[in-house]
């Protein structure tokens, strides 16, 4: 069995499972954000009710709203908050950060665990060597909350090996964007991905994050990286204890095995209307942008602000671009303050926002008017997701976002390093 099969077998009390089996398994951790907490709470209270089996396992992060913009939104957050308090479920309130970042940084995700999330990008947590898939409201209300269980069809797994080392200016984000297009949107629907190879192994934990993050965009149910020294050091650094290192059995076979070399890859850009549209960023050089943002599920990592600080060390941001910085969690902002990068980016004209999921869906920030464009580290670019359906969202690396903020237009970031 592979890592996912072993976790699903253990969780469902079986000796073994195979792709296609439907199992009901014990959930170790379940994640909700302010939007999904509302839907799940409403379904649970209206149609199910009663006690929550393991309240300590259900983690809520208010991440789309760092401060409610209306009385109606405040009332929803209040109802969510009361629901958490009433049942004794952990809550990370406004200003804590992005759901995935916060859950990871605060030790809720352990190697070998069975995790579920309400957000579609939940498979990102597989970077820890655990299983994590997204579930809908009714699964939460029907089985996760009352029984701490969920049903799963055991997925087939595709092994993706990345070899080589990237050129200067090409970051892990560029590779992940490019790989999404290489595989194709929705191309490996319902299946899981194992990411491996010398390139993946060479990456830091938070750069590996960008690969399991994009799994959902190619349709995958889950993704994982087998735990290694990098994973264990990261887990121990968080103070995690009592975790289980699960790896693939020797001789494990996969539904498919694909390999790419990343050595010749240039910096990339993903252009509207969907995440499968990716090209070398030089092809879009010169496109004006009015907004640039480091934040969201794919950004707001400490390394993103380090890259931005490199670009803006000697220059201010362009006057015609608003450059917004949104830490993925509070720890990241503290580290950016300690290193002086927070002050540097502020002095060069960027604007710090509270730790949150930033402009994702423009719930609390990030709406654009018709004709405006944004370049960001976000993960989605569907028309209408950030204000006007006639606004454009470009997705790129933190280096490319910062370079565009400095230039006032999309540029090849290699001009800035």
């Amino acid at each position, binding site marked *: 069995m592979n890592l996912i099969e072993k976790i699903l077998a253990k969780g469902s009390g079986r000796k073994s499972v195979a792709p296609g*089996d439907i199992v*009901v398994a014990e959930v170790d951790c379940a994640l909700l954000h302010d939007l999904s907490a509302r839907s799940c709470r409403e379904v649970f209270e209206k149609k199910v009710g009663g006690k929550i089996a393991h309240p300590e396992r259900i983690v809520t992060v208010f991440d789309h709203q760092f401060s409610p913009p209306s009385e109606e939104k405040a009332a929803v957050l209040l109802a969510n908050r009361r629901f958490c308090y009433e049942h004794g479920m952990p809550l990370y309130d406004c200003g804590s950060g992005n759901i995935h970042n916060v859950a990871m940084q605060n030790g809720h995700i352990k190697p070998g665990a069975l995790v579920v999330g309400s957000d579609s990008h939940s498979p990102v947590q597989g970077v820890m060597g655990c299983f994590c898939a997204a579930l*809908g*409201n*009714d699964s939460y*209300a*029907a089985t996760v909350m009352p029984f701490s269980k969920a049903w799963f069809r055991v997925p087939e797994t595709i092994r993706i090996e990345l070899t080589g080392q990237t050129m200067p200016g090409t970051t892990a984000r560029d590779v992940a964007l490019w790989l999404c297009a290489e595989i194709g949107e*929705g191309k490996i*629907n319902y299946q899981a991905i194992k990411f491996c190879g010398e390139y993946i192994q060479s990456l830091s934990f938070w750069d590996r994050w960008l690969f399991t993050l994009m799994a959902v965009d190619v349709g995958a149910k889950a993704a994982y990286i087998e735990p290694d020294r990098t994973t264990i050091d990261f887990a121990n650094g968080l103070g995690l204890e009592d975790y289980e290192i699960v790896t693939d059995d020797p001789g494990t076979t996969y539904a498919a095995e694909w390999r790419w070399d990343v050595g010749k890859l240039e910096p990339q850009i993903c252009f509207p209307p969907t995440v499968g549209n990716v090209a070398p960023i030089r092809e879009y050089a010169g496109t004006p942008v009015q907004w640039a943002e480091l934040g969201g599920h794919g950004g707001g990592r400490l390394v993103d602000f380090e890259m931005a600080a490199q670009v803006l060390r000697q220059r201010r941001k362009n006057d015609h671009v608003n450059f917004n910085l949104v830490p993925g969690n509070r720890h990241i902002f503290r580290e950016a303050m300690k290193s002086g990068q927070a002050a540097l980016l502020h002095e060069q004209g960027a604007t710090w926002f509270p730790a949150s999921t930033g402009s994702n869906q423009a719930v609390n920030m990030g709406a654009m008017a018709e004709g405006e464009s944004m370049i960001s580290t976000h993960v989605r670019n569907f028309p*209408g997701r950030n204000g006007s359906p006639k606004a454009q969202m470009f997705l790129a690396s933190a280096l490319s976002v910062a370079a565009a903020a400095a230039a006032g237009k999309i540029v090849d970031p290699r001009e800035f390093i």
Partner: protein
Amino acid sequence: MTSSTETRAFQTARRGRAWMFGDNVPTDQIVATKVVFSPMEVVLKHVLEELKPEFPANVRPGDLIVAGVHFGQSSGRAIAPKAIQAAGVGCIVAESFARTFLRNCYEIGLPIIECPGASRLARDGDVVSVDLESGTVRNETTGQALQGNPVDPFLLRMLAAGGIIPLVRRTGSDLGATNT
């Protein structure tokens, strides 16, 4: 526990007018973020309007949605299938579905079926019939027939129960899955 006894009362055959949609339709364009938390009667005025402005006013109970690959990608918002269900759509036929959307559909009791070739099967307004159990999909207007993927017995039982919440009431926390 067999599927046939549990699903006897459940109608696995569906027939209705087709509404055609393309590939990779995101939930953002089924129910836009701006109305996600509005009352259903408001949501229904906007369901799928970005792709077919005439859909909200003209969809009738029993109509079918027929679409390309990766239908329902993006956000896992359950309001997207719930709005399609509330609009009266009897079944969604697509080449493939995004998995959170697929899961949400079965869990709320909205029948869906995967059918390779579906995107070229019909035009808006053609009458299409589907059988969830056998997986057959047929354009009654043109006579063209396709073989879709029969719905898994476990999921058929979930549909027959009316979704995961009523299924749990019937089976308890193991959902009757231990025998599948």
